[in-house]
């Protein structure tokens, strides 16, 4: 755990207490059972926003606390631990696009509402099943945006889309010219293909040529933070289970073959945490962001992948049951792994950034 300041410790403790008491995995089970495509609890999200979590990266003049990405990551990590279903990550990423690229007028109109939870925003970039921001066909003419975005996270709950077109990022409100097709994925969360057919669009004109990359890097580090919380929880649950389950008249935790696997996972988790925290800190420092975010998401992908698989295997048969939580983490893990950069895409980007 990075060395935190007092504000950050309070924020993390508050998030930990709330998720454990008010939003355990049983809450996610209720969301799943409801079958609602938007797949989150509106009341819970309103509470989260009241606690200030939707405005952590939004400037104070626009109703946020401006604590930064490391702080936002602390909250997201705790939410990840209990698989709390909410649009918080996507809303934060979309808000960052407006912070970086919006005009004063756009900021004043949207940021206070996104910070208070009154409105929800999300990001729509990819047009196919694999992350590839170089392949965008969506275009704008005369302020009308047309194109189809694939597997947009939290699309159902969103009032506002930050949409990547060929020539930059645009704000598009849900309404005329915006149509959703639900795509139910294994994580049972909100995903949809979104078709924009001449929808009214406003450009985010500031932020320069790197705006899309900068926003995606923020998506990468926050997604990685969610995965960090999930990986930590799978590790902790698995360790607890090994200490309780008795076979051959011994607890499983006494078997060296299992001890060494847990030691490996512990080391992996340490690397993942270091990489994710460094990614969040790089965004706050505004230095070396592309590289740090790439490392953060790549390590999150690698470790979460293994952790989910080992979590199931080490739980044995009951790990395969719907009654146990560990399977939920596996299913969410793979969705996040493929979002905002698969491992091979991230390694390609890392090579390019390193000049080879």
């Amino acid at each position, binding site marked *: 755990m990075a060395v935190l300041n007092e504000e950050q410790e309070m924020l993390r403790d508050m998030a930990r207490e709330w998720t454990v008491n008010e939003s355990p995995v049983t809450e996610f089970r209720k969301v799943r059972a409801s079958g609602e495509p938007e797949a989150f609890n509106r009341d819970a999200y309103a509470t989260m926003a009241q606690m200030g979590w939707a405005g952590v990266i939004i400037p104070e003049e626009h109703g946020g606390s401006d604590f930064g990405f490391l702080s936002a990551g602390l909250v997201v990590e705790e939410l990840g631990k209990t698989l709390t279903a909410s649009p918080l990550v996507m809303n934060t990423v979309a808000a960052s696009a407006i912070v970086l690229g919006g005009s004063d007028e756009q900021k004043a109109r949207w940021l206070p509402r996104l910070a208070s939870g009154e409105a929800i925003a999300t990001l729509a970039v990819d047009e196919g099943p694999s992350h590839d921001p170089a392949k965008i066909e969506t275009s704008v003419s005369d302020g009308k945006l047309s194109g189809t975005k694939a597997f947009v996270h939290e699309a159902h709950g969103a009032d506002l889309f930050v949409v990547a077109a060929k020539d930059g990022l645009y704000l598009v409100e849900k309404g005329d010219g915006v149509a959703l097709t639900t795509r139910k994925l294994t994580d049972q969360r909100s995903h949809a293909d979104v078709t924009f057919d001449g929808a009214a669009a406003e450009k985010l004109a500031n932020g320069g040529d790197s705006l899309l990359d900068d926003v995606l890097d923020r998506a990468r580090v926050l997604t990685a933070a969610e995965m960090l919380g999930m990986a930590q929880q799978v590790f902790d649950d698995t360790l607890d289970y090994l200490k309780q389950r008795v076979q051959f008249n011994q607890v499983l935790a006494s078997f*060296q073959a299992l001890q060494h696997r847990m030691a490996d996972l512990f080391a992996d988790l340490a690397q993942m945490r270091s990489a994710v925290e460094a990614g969040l800190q790089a965004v706050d420092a505004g230095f070396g962001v592309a590289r740090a975010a790439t490392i953060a998401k790549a390590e999150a992908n690698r470790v979460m992948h293994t952790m989910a698989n080992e979590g199931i295997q080490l739980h044995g048969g009951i790990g395969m049951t719907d009654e146990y939580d560990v399977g939920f983490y596996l299913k969410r893990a793979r969705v996040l792994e493929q979002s905002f950069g698969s491992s091979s895409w991230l*390694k390609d980007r890392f090579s390019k950034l390193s000049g080879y």
Partner: protein
Amino acid sequence: MATQIEPATQTDEDAFRAEVQQFLADNFPAELKGQSNALAGVDGPTNETPAQTEWREAVGARGWGTPTWPKEYGGGGLTKAQAKIIDQEFAKAGAYNPIGGMGVMMFGPTLLEYGNEAQKKEHIPSICRGEIRWCQGYSEPNAGSDLANLQTFAEDKGDHYLVNGQKTWTSGGQWADKCFAIVRTDKSDKHKGISFMLIDMDTPGVEVRPITMISGTSPFCETFFTDVKVPKDNLVGEEGQGWTIGKRLLQHERANISGGGSLARLMGQSLGDIAKKYQSTGADGELADAVLRDKIADFEIRWNSFLLTARRAMEESKAAGGVSEISSVLKKLGTKLSQERSELLIEIRGLQGLGWEGDGFSDGELGAVRAWLFGKATTIYGGSTEIQNNIIAKRVLGMLDHQ
């Protein structure tokens, strides 16, 4: 928490920095710029040049090679902040710390903790001046990972012990003046029968034979003890306390193997940059072999997250005033990744990366081959990776003893 030392003011620090700069200007021989401390490595000493001797003596006289050790025993008696200033200014001037080796890394800190006054007075000053080379008498042919199984026996003969037995993997044994050893003083108790004692390597009955390694070098020795007389004064701590003291010393050893202060050096040159010199590239300067390129990136990402983890462990330790629990993974991760890096270097260079000797290979290429081979030892010594896994599982994760 330790009592807070009065924080140094900015003026104090500036004054001390100026003092270090003046010292370097007065004492650091220009011809040594960019060199490293040949005496600190395990590959053995090269004969000191007059300039190297001069530099070692200058730093040793000030105690600045061991800046935070007490002044009364020859250390610098400085604060951590001042030690950092020395580090920074030496680095800026391209100057190495000439005081090193096992005396500094492992034995000195342990003796400062467990030695009696006479022992500290006798041994610490010569370590601070870099005059005496120490070696480690720990492993035996039948006591490797199971170190407490050691059999070298020290028989009580009244005013001295009579030591018989064999140690192995004695790093630098052929060059050492003295040996800190763990030996058995009681055969009835595996752990409590062990004592920690100091043995002069020129005592009659001590015989050292270098072991040639797969890398072609001989940094380790077998050391035989036949009726070796060791004065009772050379016992550190109490009889039977050797296992406790010996383990404490191993913590210092692990901290050193995993990198500790030398992360910048560990970082090394980007494998991608090296690969571009040996492999063909495409239109944008990218490596044409996409599989190799992916492997390199995969490695470098994990290497980066390891370095970030080492940095985090240091920050957490500093903030908490104790050792961070993730320190336990650094040795295991660092050694494995270093080995992986060596293997990848060979894949990048092809057969040019497997040269044993000759003009057809650069020094860098030849050095990498020897480092690749010798590097296989790093996951074995200092507590093998398997032992590290046991330690993590039991002490950090609270999993039960498997035995």
